[in-house]
Each structure stands twice: as C-alpha cells, then as structure tokens.
C-alpha cells in the first residue's frame, strides 16, 4: 500500500521533473523558486525568453517554473496562473502582463502576500511591482535613425508607422524621429501614415506612399519601419517599384525572409530586440530583489542593430538565431 503510494508519487514527480532544476534531493537546503509567466509559450520570442531565464537560474542556483496561460494570449488564464502561484507561495513572480490594467490586482495580491513581482516585456500600471525589464524602444528607434543617416547620407525620409494605440512601436517611432533630428541632412517627408496590422495592409499603404512622395524620382533616400509586418510590407513595395537599391530601408525584427533581404542588400539594417537577455535579466533582477538588493525601476534589455556585415558575427547570430536547445532541451 505504502509502496504503491510511493510509486504513484515517483510517477508524478517523474512527469513533473522540471528540466530547469538541477537534481535537488528532497532534503536540500531551501532553494529559491521563481515563477516566470510569459504571454504565451509557442512563439519563437518566448522560447528565447525561456532560455534566458534558464541561464539565469543556473548561474544563480535557483529554480525557475515556466508556466504560460493555457491558451496563447488568454488574459483570464494568465490571471489564474498568477493567482495559483501566489497561492502556492513561490518566492517571486516574473510576469509579462497581457494587459496593463487587468493584471494589476493579482500583482497587488502577490505583493500583499509578500511575493515580489518583476514585470517584463510590457509595462503594468501601478507601482506594486519591483522593476520593469524590457527593451528601451525609444533608444532602439534612435539606433535605427543613426544607422539610416549613416547609409543614406542625405535626403528625404519616410516613416511608416505601425498602428494607433500600440505603445512599443509608438516609442520606436518616437525614438527614430527624435534621433533623426541629430542629422540635419535628413528630413522627414512623411510620418503620419499607418501600415496597419497585416503585411497586406502595410504593403498597399507603402505602395501608395512611395508614389505620393515621388520615391522613383529620388525624393526619398530612406525609409523606417517599426516592426516585422511593416518592414516586410515596405520591402515588397520597394521590390515592386524596383527601388530596393535606391531607397535605404531600416526596419525592425528578424524573420527569415527579412534576414534574406538583408543578405541581398535590399534592407540596410534591422533592429532586433534581445528576448534571451530579457529573460535572463528579469530572473536576475528578481533574485536581487529577493536577496534585498536595490534594483532600478526600469531596466533596458538592449536592442541591437543587425547589418549584412554583422551577420558573420557569431554574437549577432546567437541573438538572431539563438541556440535554444542548449538551455531548453538538454
């Protein structure tokens, strides 16, 4: 009878055997247990975050529990997961909130229960959380502006915005516009058009924009696009107009197709976020909070400019195509 119970228990723990934790016996001294709650679990971006959090866990000798909402982008499920971790009494919660208001209450409940919370990727309203770890999008936008000024030298610039109400891309656009002011040789000829949510809508807006601003006659020297879909839509429009070599494009994010265009010199540069570093820094910050260290309220996880030249750099490749297996699937 007891043997059967033991068998069941070992079966359960075998199923639950978390790859993230090094073999720890039942009687080991108390290890910190940190819950990491992403917005979803299947996208490439979140896998990189996961890998980064595992790296931090190994370095700092803590346990990381990775648990996203059951369904991708399910707000209620994320709230449930946070509540369950609070009830379970983990040592800290690292959270990428799906909504800046709805997660406020569960985070507050966690803090009341003496469980610190570090927010990453997207910001949360209120001040219950200890720190916010994310890409500084304004800085990333500036990075793009400097690079475009370098490769285009002088002339008109088109900014194709992404969508109203999207905070992260709005900050990138803001950073770009501000950054370009340092380069008086470049002037913005359009910055009030939105590409919309899909590649399709970005493509048709780009086509119209290029014609309207007389890009074919050399009036446009460079273009900035703040995310994957606008970059790809603009790329297609430039290709169709035969302007890929004439008009310099600096965009955001690195999909396979965009990297291909970068190699073919159809794109001058791509600014990429560093999700691996985001996961790493978020967990690291969490441990520091638990250990009583003072942490900044805002931590930049950095953005990197990728060009054709830097593609040969292994550090860049690690960023663009991280070796997740090393961390997640040992």
């Amino acid at each position, binding site marked *: 009878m007891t043997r059967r119970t033991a068998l069941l228990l070992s079966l359960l723990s075998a199923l639950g055997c978390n790859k993230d934790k090094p073999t720890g016996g039942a009687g080991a001294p108390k290890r910190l247990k940190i819950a990491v709650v992403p917005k979803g679990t299947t996208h490439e971006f979140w896998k990189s975050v996961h890998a980064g959090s595992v790296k931090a866990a190994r370095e700092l000798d803590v346990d990381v529990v990775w648990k996203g909402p059951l369904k991708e982008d399910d707000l209620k499920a994320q709230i449930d997961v946070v509540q369950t971790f609070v*009830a*379970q009494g983990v040592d800290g919660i690292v959270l990428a909130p799906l909504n800046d208001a709805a997660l406020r209450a569960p985070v507050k409940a966690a803090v009341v229960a003496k469980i610190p919370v570090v927010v990453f990727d997207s910001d949360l309203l209120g001040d219950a959380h200890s720190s916010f770890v994310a890409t500084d999008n304004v800085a990333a936008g500036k990075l793009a502006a400097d690079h475009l000024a370098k490769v285009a030298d002088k002339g008109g610039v088109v900014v194709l915005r992404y969508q109203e109400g999207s905070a992260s891309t709005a900050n990138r656009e803001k950073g770009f516009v501000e950054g370009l002011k340092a380069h008086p040789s470049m002037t913005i000829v359009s910055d009030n058009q939105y590409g919309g949510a899909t590649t399709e809508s970005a493509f048709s807006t780009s086509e119209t924009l290029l014609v309207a601003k007389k890009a074919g006659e050399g009036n446009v020297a460079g273009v900035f696009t703040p995310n994957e879909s606008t970059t790809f839509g603009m790329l297609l429009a430039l290709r169709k107009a035969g302007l890929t070599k004439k008009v310099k494009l600096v965009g955001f994010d690195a999909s396979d197709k965009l990297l291909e265009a970068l190699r073919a010199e159809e794109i001058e540069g791509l600014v990429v976020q560093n999700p691996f570093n985001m996961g790493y820094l978020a967990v690291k910050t969490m441990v520091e909070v638990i250990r009583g260290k003072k942490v900044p309220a805002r931590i930049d996880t950095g953005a990197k400019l990728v060009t054709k030249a830097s593609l040969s750099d292994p550090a860049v490749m690690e960023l663009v195509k991280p070796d997740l297996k090393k961390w997640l699937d040992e």
Partner: protein
Amino acid sequence: MTSAQGAGRRGVSQRVRGVLAERPWIGPLAALVVVFVLFGLATPETFLRTQNLLTMARQTVVVGVCALGMTMIIVTGGIDLSVGSVVALTTVIIAARLRDGAGPVSAAVTGVAVGGAVGAAVGVLVGRFRMMPFVVTLGTMSALRGVAKGIAKEQKIDCDPRGLDTLLVSAQGMGPGLFVALGLAVLVALTLTYTRFGRHVFAVGSNEAAARLAGIDPSHVKLLVYTLAGLAFGVGGVMEFSTLTVGDPTDSIGLELDVIAAVVIGGAPLAGGEGSVVGSILGALLMTVIKTGAVHLGLPTWVQEIVTGGIIVVAVALDRARYARR
C-alpha cells in the same frame, strides 16, 4: 464456500450498482478525492494551504456558475455552445456601463439581464421553432462574440471596477461572490428536485414525446430553461469581470467546452434526462484541482490537457457501465 463467497460478492456489486444509479455524482466525487489526495501527498507544503484551497474555489466559480445553467440545458437534451461568448459579452457590457458612470450594482444587473435576454432568444428558437440547439448556439457563439467586439471596438475596455473586483478577492481572501455562487447552486439544485418545473425539465429530456403526451408543453419548459441558463451565464460573466477588471471581448474562448466537460464529468449524458447540480460542481472542481495541481507539480500544460481529457472519457465510460445490463 467459494460459491457463497461469489454470491456475496455479486450481492455487493449489485448493491454498489444500485447506489451508483441513484447517486451518479459519487463517481466524480471519488475522482476528486483521489486527485486531491494525490496532489496533497505530492506537494503537501503548498497544495494544502488554506490560501490555495480558496484560490481553487475562486477559480471554479465562473465554470461552476455557468455549469448550473448548462446542467439544466443538458438535462433537457440540449446544449449551449455560446457560453464563452455570453460571458465575454457580459464583461464588455459591465465595463462599458462602468466607464459610462453607472454604479457597480446597476452595471452587474445589466450584464446579467443581457445574459438572460440572450438565453430567452435561444429558448424561443429551440423551443417554439424546434431548431437544433447545437446549430442555434453555434450561431450565437459567433454572433455574440462579434457583438462584444463591436461594443468594445475590438479592444479591451478599461474602467474603474468600483468594487466589483472585490467580489471574489477580498482582504480576507474570501469574497462574497463565492457565497453568491454557492447560493445559486443550492437554488438550482432545489429547483430541479423539489419543483414541478424541475421535474418537467427531466421529463422533457428523458422523453419529449412522453412529456407532450402527458400534457406538458416542452417548448415552454425549454424557453424557461434557456432563459434561466442565460441568467446563470450572465452571473458567470459578472464573476469573470471581477477577475479581469476589464471588459475583454476575446475572453473565455473555449469556456463552453470546459463547462460542458464539467457537466459531463458530473454524470449527465448529452442525450438528456439525467444530471445533477452536485455532479456538475464536482466536475468543475475536479478540473480546477487538476489545473492547479499541475502548476504546483510543475507539470507542463500538455500533461494537464491529457489528464482532463482522459477523465472525461472515463466519466462517459462509467456512465455507459451504469446502464450495462448485468
């Protein structure tokens, strides 16, 4: 001696079958106890905390309240696939009302009323016009989701929850919402057992032609059942809003399947004529316990999904076994 033993065993198994036939919720209760004890043994220091038990109770409220309505519907032999959409619509309507300055009570009442109105509309189509509930609610599932998105302009509606957020979570950890849900469950259970209407619900589900022959109007019974169920879904929406604190038109996609699963695990066959509030609540609790236990053990999501699916199939298999002739 062996034959005497055999006879004794047969007697026991027959008695067990008799008990199971009268109390179909004993199966899910046993499953709940087993799963609970297993998780308790595996992670005793966290799983058995009062706080965890309360959290599990809170997380069962929405599915549980919706399961009250779904139990009535399934007992009549119907189904409602639009639960998730009704709940999402309710959160959106409550958020919109609060944003426009309405008080918390009036906003919640509006939400529940909308749920009831939707239920009544479905009830008319299913009852009076004898349309298939599966098809009708397949339509309302999509249509109401669209209405919710339209009202919310395809965004989440932010608003000051004005105390509705403390319905489930309060400083003491036990909000009044839990008692509201419990009270509703008792009310529905009593209605099904101790009223003429409740008996007609079972009659219509067991054999609609026989009910009609006996002078009962099945369309009237169905209209009432779908309306009451709609009200329950509306209350579920209020509870959902209490957790979300925003109006989310994309919320609760797939909730209907959780709710149906809870009712089926609770011993109600989709063919109708049977089912109990106790069983459905146990089914909902069982799913929450599995979900929570999986987090505590660090089990990945896919294991949790397999276990829940397995339990549904076992529940139905047990149900078949109850009918098996000796």
